[in-house]
């Protein structure tokens, strides 16, 4: 049975608060900035207040002393936060709270733990637990570490000193994810670098090692070397891959609803969308919409292709209007009964209407960009590059001829041009210096954008092909011809999906016919 990830984490947090039994029953919850974000990704303040919590306070802001209540700290194990907790009980008399129940979102480093043990008066420390929730739940089956700087720390040559620390941090967070999912001892599979001279070839390997070490540590601390195996369910597999597994997917234009909206519109952190709307009196105003799990329409359609999405939105919206025909039919002489009904359903009606309006707005704006930026043409070229085939299954021969008018066009943003160029270079496995200069001249892209193309080198992409004769033909990746039912502009299948699908079939096979033992496969075929 699949349980939504955010429900699992929410339960962990609320259970932690519930587990604190204090005389009188009332407690204060104290969080810090980072842990607050983690908590907010799954719980509302309302949920927390339902657990006999009087207030949710921020550790780093001035707080009201509550010497009668115990405090439930749900915090990051950073030196900063731990010092603050110690201060709460040592700075003044009487201390801020009657007692401290410490819940850390991830394991503490030893020096911090020692500092806490030596400085916090033991009679105040009522309980201590590690929750393993140091990550953000984005969707019912998606998590994120919300850490864009990681990308630079892992790949930028200028930030190599930060590489090891970053990997260490990521491995701790991955431990949190697995433990929260109830997988205390997964098999770890990692991606092998594509080429031996690949600059990041060791990244998944190094990370896999660190994660394994974290799990071993975890098992040792828990004194549980062999967790009871659930016979119904084989050991989970943790796949560790890095960006180089699939350089096409992030650059392509995606046309599923969520992906496209995030790509072509301004959506803050994937969640907050600001839009203009025209009110009943013709005035315009801007409104913010929050796109999250509570928006049923969003949850329902976000992973669907834009076309299906618009169709569904239209039918659903019309159905919705029909259901509420008493309100929408203005010329129909409403009798008293109808009026009463209208009055009662009006707030819910308004609520749903607003939601539909948000999504109709997003869809509309996406389609505007789609038309204005000539995305159908762009996407066809992109798909041809990424899959290595034209829609009718032939090798694309006229790529450059198709591409040049678009590179010249002033309707296409240079951002899009850069993406097309990147895909072309990857498809060709590097192009001639001469050709590149010509293409860049057509596209008239800026220097930083040129740098962006050059940076593909850091992911093992070949940019320049030496003149004919000297170059050794290397095997290019070509996707197998796709099934004819999919949309022409969405033919590409992300490689991770292929890997996982193959793996799943393979695993089912193995489980059916072979006995399982640890370390059966140490490397995942790349």
């Amino acid at each position, binding site marked *: 049975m699949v349980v939504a990830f955010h429900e699992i984490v929410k339960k962990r947090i609320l259970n932690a608060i519930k587990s604190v039994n204090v005389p009188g029953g009332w407690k204060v919850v104290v969080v810090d900035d980072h842990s607050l974000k983690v908590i907010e990704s799954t719980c509302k303040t309302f949920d927390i207040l339902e657990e*006999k919590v009087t207030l949710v306070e921020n550790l780093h802001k001035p707080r009201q002393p509550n010497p009668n209540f115990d405090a439930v700290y749900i915090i990051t194990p950073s030196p900063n936060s731990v010092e603050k907790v110690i201060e709460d009980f040592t700075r003044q008399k009487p201390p801020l709270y009657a007692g401290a129940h410490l819940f850390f979102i991830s394991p503490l480093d030893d020096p911090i733990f020692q500092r806490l043990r030596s400085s916090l008066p033991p009679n105040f420390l009522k309980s201590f637990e590690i929750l393993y929730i140091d990550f953000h739940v984005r969707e019912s089956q998606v998590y994120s570490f919300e850490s864009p700087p990681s990308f630079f720390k892992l790949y930028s040559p200028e930030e190599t000193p930060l590489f090891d620390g970053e990997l260490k941090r990521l491995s701790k967070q991955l431990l949190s994810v697995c433990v929260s999912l109830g997988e205390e001892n997964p098999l770890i599979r990692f991606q092998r670098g594509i080429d031996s001279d690949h600059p990041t070839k060791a990244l998944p390997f190094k990370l896999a090692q660190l994660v394994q070490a974290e799990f071993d540590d975890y098992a040792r601390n828990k004194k549980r070397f062999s967790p009871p195996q659930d016979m119904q369910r084989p050991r989970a597999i943790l796949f560790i891959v890095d960006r180089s597994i699939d350089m096409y997917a992030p650059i392509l234009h995606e046309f599923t609803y969520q992906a496209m909206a995030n790509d072509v519109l301004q959506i803050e952190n994937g969640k907050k969308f600001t839009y203009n709307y025209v009110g009943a009196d013709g005035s315009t105003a801007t409104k913010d919409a929050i796109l999250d799990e509570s928006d049923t329409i969003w949850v329902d359609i976000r992973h669907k292709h834009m076309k299906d999405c618009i169709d569904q939105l239209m039918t659903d919206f019309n159905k919705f209007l029909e259901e509420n025909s008493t309100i929408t039919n203005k010329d129909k002489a409403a009798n008293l*009964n109808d009026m*009463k009904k209208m009055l*009662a359903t009006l707030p819910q009606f308004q609520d749903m209407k607003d939601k539909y309006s948000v999504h109709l707005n997003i869809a509309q704006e996406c389609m505007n960009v789609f038309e204005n930026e000539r995305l159908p043409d762009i996407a066809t070229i992109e798909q041809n590059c990424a899959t290595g085939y034209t829609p009718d299954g032939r090798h694309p021969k006229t790529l450059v001829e198709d591409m040049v008018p678009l590179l010249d066009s002033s309707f296409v943003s240079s951002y899009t041009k850069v993406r097309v160029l990147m895909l072309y270079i990857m498809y060709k496995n590097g192009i001639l210096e001469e050709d590149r200069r010509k293409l860049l001249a057509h596209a008239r892209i800026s220097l930083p954008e040129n740098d962006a193309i050059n940076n593909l080198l850091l992911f093992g992409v070949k940019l320049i092909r030496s003149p004919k004769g000297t170059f050794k033909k290397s095997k290019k990746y070509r996707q197998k011809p796709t099934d004819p039912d999919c949309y022409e502009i969405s033919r590409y299948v992300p490689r991770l999906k292929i890997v996982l699908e193959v793996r799943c079939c393979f695993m089912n096979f193995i489980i059916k016919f072979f006995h399982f033992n640890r370390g059966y496969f140490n490397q995942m075929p790349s």
Partner: protein
Amino acid sequence: NDVGQYLDKTEAVEKNIDIIRANISRIKELQTLILGSTLIQREESYRKERDGLINETRTLIFENKDRIKQFEYENSRLHISDPNYELHKRRHEFLREKLTNAVSEYQDVASAYIRQQEDRMARQYKIVNPNATQLEVDNYMKNPTQPVFQQAMLRTGEAHSVLDQVKKRHEDIKNIELTIAELATLLKELHLQTEEQDQNIVQIEENTEKAASKLGKANENLNIAHLHAISARKKKWICLGILVIIAVILIVIV
């Protein structure tokens, strides 16, 4: 102490809201049973239990709404600098949200029931008058006590009991509609926060007064500063004069 008392009082309200929610889910259950039952007697007994619950829930909702409003009123008299201001406010908001959620859930349950019951009535009308047009059905739904069934009675004997049922259901729907309308007004009331806004206005006034008096003081200080600056400038000139004289004297001597 004060905070403890307040918390106890809010907890009592919270427990009541839990009872309200339990009632609502029982009402929902009963309504499914009513809609699905084929025996008139059993339907009657379900309906009785449900009506009892509706009354109880109604009283509870209104009582607790008043208590929450009372909290709001009491809180509005607290000053923002009161150490427990935040706690009081948070607790009140929490209760308000909890009650609001319960009431909207109740509304949903009630309107779903009406919809289903109406569907059923329309179906029955069509059984009696198999050739009815949609318009006729709509007209009938607006006033289901029309003598349709008397006419039909001449044709079938069964229609009599059906008429009875239909009348009852119509009454039932009317009652539930009343409940829904009542809940709607209640929700609006819950969202009105006049008292608190008053409190804000008082605070704004206070703050403005403070700001005004501080501005006055600042002006005074500025005036003083101005005077000081003038005298300082004057002294600088005097200094310069003295220096020039000394220099002249030195030159003369040398």
